[in-house]
């Protein structure tokens, strides 16, 4: 089954235009490393020194990983990962 990872537009150039890619279950930081093997350049764009960049939000099944275990959040079979650039709030 694997893990489905949604790729935002700015990174789709690296995935050959693919909006969704598959990964093996594991910690977020491992998934990023695995993606980078297949699509070189992804890791340095969304992370720096093993930390997710300040302006990148990552969600596992709709929950922000900052509320889970950040880079060490475990993602299991069948879960979905979204990589979303930080955007301005439109609430106010």
């Amino acid at each position, binding site marked *: 089954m694997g893990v489905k990872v949604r790729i*935002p537009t700015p990174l789709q150039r690296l995935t050959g235009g693919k909006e969704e890619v598959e990964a093996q279950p594991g910690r977020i930081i491992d998934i990023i490393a695995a993606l980078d093997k297949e699509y070189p350049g992804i890791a340095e*764009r969304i992370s720096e020194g093993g930390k997710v*960049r*300040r302006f990148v*939000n990552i969600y596992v099944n709709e929950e922000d990983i900052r*509320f889970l275990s950040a880079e060490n959040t475990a993602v299991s079979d069948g879960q979905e990962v979204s990589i979303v650039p930080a*955007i301005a709030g*439109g609430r*106010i």
Partner: protein
Amino acid sequence: MGFTKALKCRECSREYPVEPIYVCEFCFGPLEAVYDYDGIKKVLTRETIAARPRTLWRYKELLPIAGEPQVGLDSGFSPLIKADNLARILGVKELYIKDDTVMHPTLSFKDRVVSVALTKAKEFGFDTVACASTGNLAHSVSALGARSGLKRFVFIPASLEQSKITASVVYEPNLIAVDGNYDDVNRLCSEIANKHRWAFVNINIRPFYAEGSKTMGFEILDQLGWQAPDHVVVPCASGSLLTKVWKSFKEAHKIGLINDLHTKVYAAQATGCSPIAAAIKSGADVIRPVKPDTIAKSLAIGNPADGYYATAVVRETGGYGEHVSDAEIIHAIKLLAATEGIFAETAGGVTLAAAKRLIEAGKIDKNGSTVICITGNGLKTQEALAGHTGEVHHIKPNLASFEDVLAKIGR
């Protein structure tokens, strides 16, 4: 021709052409408009500005448009009120309220950013505009988009109160109620923005949209006779307004509209959602996201996109941050109404209550001039005051009954 040279990444300084893009492809940092200030300096003087209509577009050279303004031609230039009654109570010498409760057409500062965003959307050739919002932004996109003939998609959390839905749906946008909270709506919208070629004002049009907030700052300087105030207190949701008010002051200084700039910038938040104020107070470098719980819903962004930059502005200028309880917010809304006759929404209560604390703590100098930015109208958040307002005196329709009450009131 406009004066916007490029979009530039705020993190790594890579430059991009002026297009509907919003993040750096390399590091995901936010993109910001950069201008040809030498060119602007030659055409935008105090005299040119004074000869123009009193709208937000009188500073158009400092806004990221290529042609003439197309949307919000009657928006902006809200009153700057000298608040002497309130100043007496707070014990300060010189106090002003920048009053965006009366912004045309939807009674909040969002008409500033949306005017710029929709003008830019038209320049880019979009026929559909969209936003994720629970309130003021939805109202503004719905209304200004209607007048400018754009198709509109407005995304809201399904749990939103009926009164807020009515204030958007009356303009007949496509209103999409998403089964989730505001953060879910925002996340979904950024994914929709990947798929459909629409102008999402706070996503792919964001670098342009955000610049509209500068007009609040330009107006403050203009209305003070091109003097910068000693202190300015700004409410923070994403933190964008605060950073842009400061940017406007720096730009006005750079092109010679003001001669001296020494303003300290202060961030106001509700305690139930204070990631920016908390970072300022603790001296932290990182913004820790929170799950919001406050009556100031228009400021309830738990993961503020510009939080880092807002914190940096406050530090750079020697200002400070403060957060206030729901009870203080209600008290401040009532105080502003009773002293200056201005009915602000909950965000306005946050800003005034934070200013009050900052004054009492000596963080804001009582002898200096202070501007408090009030961003939206209280008629939009009346439910927050339920059970907290003064009493109504009920009488029979006769003089005796009235005289009885008058005696009780005691005058």
